[in-house]
């Protein structure tokens, strides 16, 4: 018994030392930082006031539009690629595999540059529908499709094999069974990772910066940067950052709730 008490004592001593160390480092950083300059550069309320209403009516609105259009295109394309990856036809599997490796292996920024520069060069005279919006949807969609294809494939494979067998034995064709029996179950399974992908896209929509957008097409990051140089103050960037967090933190919370619910229902059945 005394040995256990000594162990506990030793643990509490080492914890105290850790806390003291953390507190010391935090205080050192806080003390050595120049708070006055920081505050005048990042949290100037008069500068923040100049951001409205454009911050909401242009920047946040465009960020949401870019994210959702990229997500929808990525979802449709990702579903097609996932089904190709699971196909019995070997060339389909190859194409899907190459697509996934290619677009997951490249920085999203490069793909955006390719969409912005490469496509007009490759197909002279053609305009993507929706102008900048079309380009952004394509750029974000191409990247997210690769990640979503793998998520969707995992979801389809998580549906027990007996479900397909039961559907086939009732006379469903493979495609019909996939559509009305397997995919509805697969999507229920992958709602949390898909929501996560939505959060990632929300942040990646800042890559629009590199496409060259008009004033009305700016999203949060570009908007913040532009106003920072106009006002010669970095408060707009700080506020734009807050805007991202206002969306991503609640979405992250939703993902954790959905995951917890999925785990609970799995445990029940």
């Amino acid at each position, binding site marked *: 018994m005394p040995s256990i008490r000594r162990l506990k004592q030793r643990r509490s001593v080492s914890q105290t030392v850790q806390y003291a160390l953390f507190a010391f480092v935090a205080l050192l950083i806080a003390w050595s930082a120049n708070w006055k300059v920081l505050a005048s550069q990042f949290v100037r309320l008069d500068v923040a006031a100049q951001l409205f209403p454009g911050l909401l009516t242009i920047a946040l609105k465009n960020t949401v539009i870019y994210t959702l259009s990229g997500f929808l295109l990525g979802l449709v394309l990702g579903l097609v690629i996932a089904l190709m990856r699971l196909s019995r036809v070997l060339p389909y599997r190859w194409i899907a595999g190459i697509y996934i490796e290619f677009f997951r292996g490249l920085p999203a920024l490069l793909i955006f540059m390719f969409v912005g520069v490469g496509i007009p060069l490759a197909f002279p005279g053609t305009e993507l529908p929706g102008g900048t919006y079309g380009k952004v949807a394509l750029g974000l969609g191409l990247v997210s499709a690769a990640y979503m294809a793998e998520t969707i494939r995992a979801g389809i494979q998580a549906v*027990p094999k*007996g*479900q397909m*067998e*039961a*559907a*086939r*034995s*009732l*006379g*469903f*064709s493979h495609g*019909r069974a996939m559509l*009305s*029996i397997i995919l*509805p*179950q697969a999507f*229920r399974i992958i709602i949390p990772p898909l929501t996560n992908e939505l959060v990632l896209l929300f942040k990646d929509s800042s890559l629009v910066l590199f496409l060259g957008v008009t004033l009305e097409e700016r999203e949060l990051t570009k908007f913040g940067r532009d106003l920072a140089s106009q006002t010669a103050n970095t408060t707009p960037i700080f506020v734009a950052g807050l805007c991202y967090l206002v969306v991503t933190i609640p979405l992250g919370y939703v993902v954790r709730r959905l995951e917890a619910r999925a785990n609970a229902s799995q445990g*029940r*059945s």
Partner: protein
Amino acid sequence: MSAVEIRGVNKSFGALHVLKGIDLSIDSGEVVCVIGPSGSGKSTLLRCVNLLEEPESGQIFVHGVEITHPDVDIDAQRRKIGMVFQQFNLFPHLTVTENLTLPQRRVLGRAPPEASRVAAENLERVGLAQKANAYPAQLSGGQQQRVAIARALAMNPELMLFDEPTSALDPELVGDVLAVMRMLARDGMTMMVVTHEMSFAREVADRVVFMDGGVIVEQGPGAQVIGNPTHERTRAFLSRVLDPAAVSL
């Protein structure tokens, strides 16, 4: 014409030769129980009859149509062959009624009111009309299996295949499922049943088929194959699955 005609069927999984030239025919309205040790190939044989497993050689005819022919529309043939699985395989995202109506509508093209009526009739038949709006996860294993039987029956099959329908059930739930299967047999359904329920096989089956090592060792009336087997392998198997008290019944 036989309901099922199996001729010289061979099937391997990799190096494992599971079915070694099986011949078997089942008449319309006949109830055939297939028994045998695990790994004997009995489930594989059953799954060949609706082509969930494709034989490497041999032919299978169901109601005169060769389902092993490369040009056959297998989806059209499977509509007439009901299948009940060991693990029930109900669709968990659909209610009991939707489990019965969705296949009717999507596969047979029945109008929703007719599909609902047929679903209600068949749930009544298996004694689960009161569970129409429940989800599969809310039912006991025995209830789920009876819903699975009703789902197959709602397609008006001419032949029913049962793949160890009671093996995943708690012992006290087996009786209800067997009662539904008895009722089907009495109503004249053609049935091929892979089972470990010896008393059911003996009592309900018109014919019992004993398989071991990928071949049919012996077959005949239940009283003969189970009550008085002629082959040593059959006797050895039965002595393992039946306790002495059950044999004397």
